[in-house]
């Protein structure tokens, strides 16, 4: 349980970092918070030749809100993002998800951008990026490029970050007026990886009915799975009248049909599918209450 030997660089600027990455190529690996990478090193599941430690890039330790976007720099720790009142007001889903990311002590060190780049299909923040349609900013010696959420996740633990690139920032759109969000998950132990989890975003129309409902699922596919629940909710929203509560059970059934989870030591596929249904209803109810609270307030 000790990391294998590796070379080490500790650049002090983004320019210096991308220069090192250009020279190390496939053999280099960026270390930020290290809360996913160091366990992989300790268990020798990852054996990079060279570690590029970006913990001195304090220029990237920012969280800000501007032009309808929450911008999170590559060195912003989960705890820092979670504690930011401006972020909490602008996009509540971020805090709802971050509270479920591991334990508080892990959040003190782990970075939000790092967990997204890590592309763990059971990661809460990967689902948030996918659901909100955020973007990831990547820097290399040849300049910057921006990748949208739908193109970012290639597979389990695989994202569209090239070996010579540094993810410098993640941007997430702020929550629209008349919209609400919620996050629900089940894990075996508090702070553990979710057996199944779902982030839900709903938008209400002028009459308080559901005009749009979308969900992102974690731990049920190789990448965050997006499902559009609008139709399932809406079909009964009309029938149920002005209540605007929608047909949550129908949405839950749709979710169960859409996910195709696998079985492992933590849970069977059938249990995960069952959870997808239950958690969809639960998160939808939460998101609806949130949206109504915000419209009324």
């Amino acid at each position: 349980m000790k990391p294998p030997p590796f070379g080490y660089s500790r650049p002090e600027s983004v320019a210096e970092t991308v220069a090192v990455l250009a020279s190390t190529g496939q053999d280099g690996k960026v270390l930020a918070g290290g809360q996913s990478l160091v366990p992989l090193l300790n268990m020798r599941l990852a054996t990079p030749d060279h570690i590029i430690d970006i913990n001195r890039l304090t220029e990237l330790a920012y969280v800000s809100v501007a032009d309808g976007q929450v911008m999170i720099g590559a060195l912003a720790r989960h705890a820092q993002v979670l504690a930011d009142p401006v972020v909490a007001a602008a996009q509540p889903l971020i805090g709802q998800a971050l509270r479920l990311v591991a334990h508080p002590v892990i959040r003190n060190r782990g970075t939000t951008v790092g967990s997204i780049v890590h592309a763990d299909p059971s990661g809460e923040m990967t689902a948030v990026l996918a659901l909100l349609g955020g973007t990831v900013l990547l820097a290399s010696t040849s300049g910057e490029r921006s990748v949208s959420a739908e193109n970012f996740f290639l597979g389990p633990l695989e994202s569209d970050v090239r070996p010579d690139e540094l993810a410098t920032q993640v941007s997430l759109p702020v929550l629209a007026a008349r919209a609400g969000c919620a996050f629900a998950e089940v894990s075996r132990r508090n702070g553990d990886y979710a057996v199944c989890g779902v982030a839900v975003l709903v938008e209400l129309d002028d009459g308080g009915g559901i005009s749009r409902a979308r969900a992102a699922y974690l731990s049920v596919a190789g990448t965050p799975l997006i499902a559009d629940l609008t139709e399932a909710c809406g079909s009964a929203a009309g029938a149920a009248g002005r209540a605007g509560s929608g047909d949550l059970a129908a949405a839950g059934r749709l979710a169960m049909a859409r996910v195709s989870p696998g079985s492992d030591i933590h849970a069977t596929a059938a249990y995960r599918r069952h959870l997808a249904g239950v958690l969809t209803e639960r998160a939808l109810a939460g998101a609806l209450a949130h949206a109504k609270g915000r419209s009324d307030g």
Partner: protein
Amino acid sequence: MASASEQGGITQSSPGLFDISLIVNGAPQAVRVPARRLLSDCLRHDLRLTGTHVGCEHGVCGACTVLVDGVAVRSCLMLAVTADGSRITTVEGLTEPDGTLSAVQQAFADCHGLQCGFCTPGFLTTITAGLAENPDPSPDQARQIIGLFNGVQRLHLSGFVWFDINRLRAWRLEGRRAAVRAFRRAVAQTTR
């Protein structure tokens, strides 16, 4: 890119070895380590501070928790080279120089807030940091500090630690005798 021996202000003294400086429990320390040295192993092996315990080595058990610049972190998930220049507080550093236990340590001793004690250094550092941030936690906040903590023996132990943290709070607010009464009430309520 900087030269091979000087990269980002860290000195590579010989191939694969780096000279770092830490302030550990108030004392400056200069250490020469390979990049792969975990902070937990640096503290235990290089500095002989064996109060920091190593359990799972992947960040789950919490036994190795230390304070880095006042913030609780898993020392098994941090490279010593990353910690270069930081102030580290280990469980040894919680005690006063004359051997007087800190309030958190004393509360643990009074309530026997441990079973085998292996993960206790992690509980002590975690709770010390939690109370530094929020000196008067509500019961829910106290649970936040410890309840989400994945101690090695957490199922059994979290009950004991819960008494400790409650008692510590009562002690601060109302003095030691009130704290003992609060503790007895808590035990009575829980075991009823």
